């Protein structure tokens, strides 16, 4: 079970509060967690990554265990703490503004 923290707007869209939990077969990677989120919450398709290119949206970032995974290859394995459910995988809307 993987814990995922969504940004506020996407929690509203998915009609959830707090963290969400998804199951991923095998060692979780960035892409397998994203696939699982979109399978559980289809309304999020296209909001985290582009429908066609599957590239991360420019103002969306990924964090886990205080490390930035945004620029890592999508098949990068996530830390053990995330795989075991001790730490969440964070999907963050980049801060903007003054």
């Amino acid at each position, binding site marked *: 079970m993987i814990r995922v923290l969504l940004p506020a707007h996407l929690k509203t*869209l998915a009609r959830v509060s707090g963290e969400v939990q998804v199951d991923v077969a095998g060692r979780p990677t960035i892409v397998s967690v994203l696939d699982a989120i979109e399978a559980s919450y289809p309304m999020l*398709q296209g*909001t985290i990554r582009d*429908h066609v290119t599957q590239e991360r949206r420019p103002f969306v970032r990924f964090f886990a265990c205080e490390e930035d995974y945004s620029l890592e290859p999508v098949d990068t394995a996530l830390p053990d703490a995330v795989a075991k459910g001790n730490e969440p995988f964070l999907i963050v809307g980049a801060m903007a503004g003054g």
Partner: protein
Amino acid sequence: MSGVRLLVGTRKGAFILTSDAKRTRWDVSGPHFPGWEMYHLKGSPADPNRLYASQSTGWFGQLIQRSNDGGKTWEPVGNKFVYDGEPGTHMWYDGTPHPWKFARVWHLEPSLTDPDTVYAGVEDAALFRSTDGGKNWEELPGLRTHSSGPSWHPGAGGMCLHTIILDPKHRDRMFVAISAAGAFRSDDAGKTWKPINRGLKSDGIPNPTADVGHCVHRIAMHKSRPDVLFMQKHWDVMRSDDSGDSWKEVSGNLPTDFGFPIDVHAHDPETIYVVPIKSDSEHFPIDGKLRVYRSKAGGDEWEPLTKGLPQRDCYVNVLRDAMSVDSLDSCGIYFGTTGGQVYASADAGDNWTPILHDLPGVLSVEAQTLQ
């Protein structure tokens, strides 16, 4: 009991305003989708409780929301807008080829007869259609792949398809307008398109009378007379009496003929409305006086409508989709401003009242007449 429902899209959410036929007291619900840019909301003529809304942000992209109960509840539907085939390139601001890339939905136009069919005008300019209530979207590629497509340039706000008009008499005829490619017409339900810009003159482009390249801001039609079109171009207010085959200028005595919205009285197809804006570099009313101009002659002869509108220190704009009319007797007319005001007139523009003062900047206003 008859009444009016206003669908107001703003930079930070949507608002739904309802009134009885007197149009003196308004109930306000919202913000719906708070924090999101709501470029446009529109109801189905075939089922007024079926609403569609374009929701987007720079962070999370495009969403389409649908309501089946007049905006009480909403559900996200399909947001996958993929160009048909290899998109190719259009011209960029610097004159170099630039790949076509989807950015957002500017305008939603529900079918006149089928609540599940809706058209979407998008940036970069293309026309999409859904026939299943917004779940799936398919491009009508004949427009984007018109031979002139590679030469289209974006306007300052992006290369957006912002106007879609469905002809109520000729079932397969539709009109669109693109900034800054111009106006186009299809006579075969969107399969093929022809530019309809003859008579337009735009001094800001290399060939001022070119077939394409004009910055059309908005087109309006009266449903009883679909061969007559009115256009607010970047500069110039124009009229066509032959379905866009030719245009003539009807700016007449307007104090400035720059502006964004244009609309037609619900019961008099020769009565039209514009909101003159000082210039393309100063997007606010002349002398700080917010004035709607009305022509009862289909153009050329205009009168300022000022009662109830601020006549000093007003420096807002009215965007292209932010004016609408109802079809009650007498005709109601509404517009929203970039300053967050929504103004209403229940007497065809003679007198105005602000319904709301302090919304986020208004992007769109659509009036639904409820019977």
